[in-house]
């Protein structure tokens, strides 16, 4: 029996070995090495030279670091709650037992399948200030309300510092399909007997939502909020394509864009590693905070 169990263990390890090797070589080692490099002057092309806390000290005097951090926080603080509200709303609508339910679910999920680069190219045209779908739509709307002398003129979304970040947030809302599917799955688990009981007690739909549905899916909300927050902190590909150098005037220069430029374009891998670790600590602290804040607000049926 013992021999069989040890044979099984060896087989298990052997099966996991390809992943273990890959994880150690491509994840664990680079992660550990990056701690050391963050204390070095290192361009990738020459051996690292240990410089102590120089990179970390320099970062706190770096105005572009502060600017990129502010841009990222702005994006996280606005986009995460907004996308949470919208995706929950969509999931509630798509949970309704109506004809064509499968079609609507597919329809709203579809944008999440568009690759990031294609998405950026598509939205470059949607946001085009003269011929874009959005501003043309606003112009048409303005035509309908012309009788009231209203004239809605869409802003230059991509070239105005006031509108560039909101444009990106607006875009992010379009791709909330994955979160929406998770909410939908959560909604399936809301006990029917609770909803029926509240019906019998004469609860209104909004009261059922507030006192039954939302509390019952609160663990799913917490999970999605944390995942959305981590994703938003790491925003990179779309703004990198749509806004070269964080244009206009670095209003869309996000943290990971600066990290990438520092490592790959400016050849300062040590400095970039320090940035990476600061980002890690930031996300870690924010996640812990979210868990702490949600402790008394999240309902776990097993707990």
């Amino acid at each position, binding site marked *: 029996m013992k021999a069989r169990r040890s044979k099984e263990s060896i087989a298990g390890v052997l099966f996991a070995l390809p992943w273990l090797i890959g994880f150690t070589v491509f994840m664990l080692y680079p992660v550990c090495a990056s701690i050391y490099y963050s204390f070095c*002057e290192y*361009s*990738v*092309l*020459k051996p690292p*030279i240990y410089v102590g806390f120089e990179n970390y000290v320099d970062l706190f005097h770096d*105005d*572009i670091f502060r600017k990129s951090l502010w841009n990222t926080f702005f994006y996280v603080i606005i986009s995460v709650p907004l996308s949470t509200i919208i995706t929950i709303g969509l999931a509630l609508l798509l949970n309704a037992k109506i004809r064509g339910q499968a079609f609507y679910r597919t329809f709203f999920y579809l944008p999440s399948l568009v690759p990031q680069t294609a998405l950026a190219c598509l939205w470059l045209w949607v*946001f*085009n*200030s*003269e*011929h874009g779908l959005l501003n043309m739509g606003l112009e048409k709307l303005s035509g309908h309300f012309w009788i009231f002398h209203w*004239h809605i*003129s869409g*802003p*230059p*979304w*991509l*070239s*105005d*510092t006031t509108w560039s970040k909101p444009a990106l947030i607006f875009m992010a809302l379009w791709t909330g399909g994955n979160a929406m599917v998770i909410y939908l799955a959560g909604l399936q688990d809301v006990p029917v007997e609770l909803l029926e009981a509240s019906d019998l007690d004469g609860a209104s739909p909004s009261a059922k939502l507030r006192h039954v549905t939302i509390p019952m899916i609160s663990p799913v909300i917490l999970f999605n909020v944390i995942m959305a927050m981590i994703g938003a902190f790491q925003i990179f590909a779309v703004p990198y394509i749509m806004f070269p*150098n*964080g*244009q*206009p*005037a*670095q209003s869309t220069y996000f943290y990971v864009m600066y990290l990438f*430029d520092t490592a*790959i*374009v*400016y*050849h300062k891998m040590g400095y970039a590693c320090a940035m990476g670790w600061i980002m890690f600590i930031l996300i870690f602290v924010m996640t812990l905070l979210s868990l702490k804040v949600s402790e008394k607000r999240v309902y776990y049926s097993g707990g």
Partner: protein
Amino acid sequence: MHLGAVKTVAGIAVILGSVIWSERIVIHNPPPGRVHVVYWEKWTDFEADAMRDVVDAFNASQDKIYVDYLSISGIENKTLMAVSGGDPPDVAGLYGQNVAQYADDDAILVLDDFCKQKGISADRYIPAFFKIGYYRNHIYSLPSAPASVALHYNKDMLAAAGIAEPPKTYEELDEDCDKLIKRDPRTNHIIQQGFMPAEPGWWNFAWGYWFGGKLWNGKDKITANSPENIRAFEWIQSFSKKYGTSEMQSFRGGFGAFNSPQNAFLDGQVAMEQQGVWMSNFISKHAPHLKWGAVPMPYPKDRPDLANLTVADEDVLVIPRGAKHPKEAFEFINFVESQKGMTILCLGQRKNSPLKEMPPEFYSKHPNPFIKLFSDLPKGPKTFSTPQMGIWPEYMAALSTAFDEVNLMQKTPKEALDDVQARMQPKLDESLERLRRRGVIK
């Protein structure tokens, strides 16, 4: 059970077959007995075809070396990674502005001895193009396809506005813009503009040079906020002041991609634009009926010495550190640097040549009607290029941000350039200190 085993074997055979087949598709086997030189280059489309013709001509000219051309996007970043990983190509086609940074990082080889052996020296080249690869008294790169910049103008638009000739000075350009601007009477939106400093936005660093400024002293001092640079940025801001910041931004926000018929110059939204020698390719591709011309960039009226100024742009060939066949790689570079190689390359890419002497048929066969202008402009004594400094990518990004801030009226030109100065001088000091620490400079 038996069927299961057959299925497993068949599955493994299909996977193995796919792996072997895909390897055969991807890997080019050079002819036996020849040294295989791997060459990474940034170009695609007809520009890649031109270099492939050079490679084919080289491969056919001898039987000892075989060059394999590979189009690579993000060439500078991938070369960096390949060098650090110890498996770089034998030849890489970088941008001229990469040379100082890659040389400082010891990522590319010094070509002095190779050049000496082959008799390649500065005499062969137009000085501005040779200088791009000559850094800290060593040759680090040699030119592949160069370019120079001039003011392109739409003849019909100028004629319709009653302008007989393209502007020679910035003061004349301002007057022409006043004549060329058109607005939608209903919305007051700009629908046509004479010139926009932000278009195409590729030489935002160069505005100071056009007004007689410099970005550093060539050694240890940043000069971003020199009076000439501030004057240039004041001229840039004058457009926003005169025509309205949001109107200009809104108008610009409607432009299509550069390589498309919706390009602002090609579809007649902007009458004049600073552009490189390559623009004629895009005109013939997207707007073949456009009547256009090219003249030197304007100069300030009180600085006639800046007439006929241009920026020398250049793609370069380097041998990365760790290349397996540097000697053979240079044989190929030597072929590219010949009149024969440059004729195939620059004619194919429809650009000017970095060489002083080119055969007469180069000019007679060239499809760009203004090739003589683009060839002659870089011969001027004041031709400038991007500064040779390791921190150039950061400096360029800072200047680009300052340009935006001035263009959007967020800062005065002096404030924006003072900020660049304050940010970049410590960066330069730090970079020089690091080079000293590593013994690259004294």
